[in-house]
């Protein structure tokens, strides 16, 4: 983007600076094709299945909008979307699941609370020790004291926490939920994801962009490991279900209608996000963000606080990911930490964004829905192709196929996603609906 001769329209002349309002042919054709594909899926797979697919695609669209802010608007690459999605799903679970009386009726909440208080107190002590040099303690001694104190206090707190959590697990199963409406969990999930994004961004955004990718990839695996192994909080591999919906559930309205209501709910959320992002993109703030992305040095020379703006946009993207993750988790009505996979929740979203058009909100939504339909439909296709290969192989070469063909067939999708990423980067780096760059004469 930094190369202005490439991005400019070759027919551009200074005399005719205002872009002519042309009829959006490309948009109409692409969305028309998408509509036809959706109708075909409805005709083939039935209404209940197709509506479910659409709701999931809508939740993915929110994730993709979060990523398009980070990658398309600001050029920051987040390789750990999965972690933020999982945080959103976790919060949706924690807030909406009914209250567990086996936990709240005992003395366990008090014990857990006191351990957390110890943790806070220990943090304050360590921070205080790190300021000892202001009292005249030599700096090296201060560092030594701080490190030793931090290690000892950490061991004390963590061993107490282990004790309490194992008691919770044996007596109450798990903490349970708070019995609040699911949307509270979504909002808190967004805030939590934003908080984690703030911490990561604060460390990495001033440095080379690769470091952000490495750190986000790591934090995603850590969040997943935490949710998977904290049985006292999330039931771990035992999974939590069902999660109550904020809209009437299938028991009251039947599958199709209840999913349609959920779909309209998510559509409203997307519309609101889309409208706000559209305004922000065309506001001075959006212009500043693009200026930083396209030419950091000149933006800094104009007096823009680059690191602060970058942090702002990174956190905003993470909030959207947390929100979308919460909505996705509630819709699936199941919280399964092991169900969060880098392929499904990071790279699929990445493909949606770079294929649809990074920095173009409409393109991103198009990419999300289109890629999700292909993704869902490819599962039976992959199995079919694999069976075909096996039968040909057996018939022609007398090759006996291994028994775990199904799990291997799914690996073909990993291959396809990887190929899509590299091919799009190579041949259509701006996506199907490229970002429109306004030229001001």
């Amino acid at each position, binding site marked *: 983007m930094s*190369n202005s001769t490439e991005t400019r329209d070759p027919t551009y002349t200074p005399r005719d600076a205002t872009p002519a309002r042309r009829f959006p042919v490309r948009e109409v054709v692409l969305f028309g094709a998408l509509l036809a594909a959706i109708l075909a899926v409805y005709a083939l797979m039935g209404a209940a299945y197709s509506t479910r697919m659409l709701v999931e695609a809508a939740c993915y669209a929110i994730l993709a909008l979060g990523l398009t802010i980070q990658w398309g608007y600001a050029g920051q690459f987040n390789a750990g979307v999965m972690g933020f999605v999982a945080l959103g799903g976790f919060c949706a679970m924690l807030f909406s699941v009914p209250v567990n009386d086996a936990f709240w009726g005992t003395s366990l909440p008090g014990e857990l609370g006191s351990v957390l208080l110890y943790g806070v107190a220990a943090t304050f002590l360590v921070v205080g020790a790190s300021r000892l040099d202001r009292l005249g303690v030599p700096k090296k001694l201060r560092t030594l004291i701080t490190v030793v104190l931090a290690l000892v206090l950490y061991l004390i707190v963590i061993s107490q926490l282990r004790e309490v959590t194992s008691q919770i697990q044996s007596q109450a199963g798990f903490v349970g939920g708070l019995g609040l409406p699911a949307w509270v969990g979504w909002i808190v999930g967004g805030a939590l994801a934003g908080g984690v994004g703030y911490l990561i961004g604060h460390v990495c955004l001033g440095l080379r962009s690769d470091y952000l990718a490495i750190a986000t990839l790591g934090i995603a695996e850590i969040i997943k490991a935490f949710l998977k192994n904290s049985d006292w909080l999330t039931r771990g591999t035992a999974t939590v279900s069902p999660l109550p919906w904020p809209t009437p559930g299938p028991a009251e309205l039947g599958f199709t209608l209840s999913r349609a209501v959920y779909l309209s709910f998510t559509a409203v959320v997307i519309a609101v996000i889309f409208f706000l992002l559209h305004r922000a993109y065309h506001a001075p703030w959006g212009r500043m963000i693009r200026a930083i992305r396209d030419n950091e040095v000149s933006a800094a020379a104009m007096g823009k606080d680059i690191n602060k703006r970058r942090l702002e946009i990174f956190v905003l993207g993470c909030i959207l990911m947390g929100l979308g993750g919460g909505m996705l988790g509630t819709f699936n009505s199941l919280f399964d930490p092991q169900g969060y996979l880098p392929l499904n929740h990071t790279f699929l979203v990445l493909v949606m964004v770079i294929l649809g058009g990074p920095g173009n909100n409409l393109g991103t939504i198009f990419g999300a829905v289109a890629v999700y339909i292909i993704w869902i439909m490819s599962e039976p296709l992959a199995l079919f192709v694999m069976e075909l290969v096996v039968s040909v192989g057996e018939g022609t070469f007398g090759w006996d196929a291994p028994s775990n063909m199904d799990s291997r067939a799914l690996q073909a999708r990993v291959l396809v996603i990887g190929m899509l990423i590299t091919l799009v980067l190579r041949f259509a*780096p701006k996506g199907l609906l490229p970002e429109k760059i306004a030229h001001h004469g």
Partner: protein
Amino acid sequence: MNELVFFINNVIIAGSVTGSIYAIGAIGVTLIFSIMRFAHFAHADMMTFGAFMVLLLTTLFPAAGTSIGVPTALVMLPLAMLLTAALAVGIDKAFYKPLRAHGVKPIVLVIGSLGVTLMLQGLIRLFSGTGGQSLYVDDRKEIFRLALPFEGARAPIVITEPQLYLFVITLVAVVALHVFLNRSRLGKAMRAMSDNPELAQASGINTNTIVAVTWVIAGGLAAIAGTLLSLDVTFKPDLSFFLLLPIFAAAIVGGVGHPYGAIAGGFVVGFAETLAVFNWNVLLRPFRDSLPTWLELPSNLAFVGTEYKIVVPFFILVAILVWRPTGLFKGKVIQ
């Protein structure tokens, strides 16, 4: 004394093993970083690919090693290194070179390498399945138990055959790399290009050759690291992202673009991991009677459980980025 032996087995030997593997992986990452200026995310899957090639070759010729008395997998290692190096050069030609020719930002190359990592992952698992497999197809893993000549040391120091090979091969690889970088013309040209690519090109160094040589070295080292890891435990095709983080942490701790730093960084990360999951209560046990009665130690004094091992390299990474982004050995912060 038994506690000390336990410490040696679980920290010193285990730490050196993981440290060597991370070090060999990190050298590759840091070389690519310094020549091509991007974080190569497909490195862990290149390691897996190397190990998978060894597995394939070993299954094809299971008896090749027994005649000369080494595990078949080690006999097949040079061949697998060649294959992985060829793969690395091919990947560069097919995917990274066109992107470089377009003059994209380094972060686009990072995304491209993520695409490549997924393709490799998909291919490997398509053929190998997702379960673990032992590289010892026809021969068996020797285990040496060294009894200590002390009173009261009943537990022996345990070291396995692949671990011994691991130490030897790491040493050979590091010395060979040192000689290559300092004595050979190509190695010097590589260092020149890592310092200043424009100046290197202007002084007549063929940058395309250097890029290819870098991929050959990185691919060969990745095959070594992957094979040794799989020999030590088992061949697991799904390690990718769990290996990537410690290797990047090691490269950054050592200072990016600094091969010797990467070796040190690998051992720092490896030992930090084993120290963090070690149960320190074991070492305090002999003094249990002399401790004051109010100080009752919990039975588990490990910093993190083994299931949270991946937190350790991440923590190291964040700490180094906050306090010393250049790394311990003043590497480049390539902007």
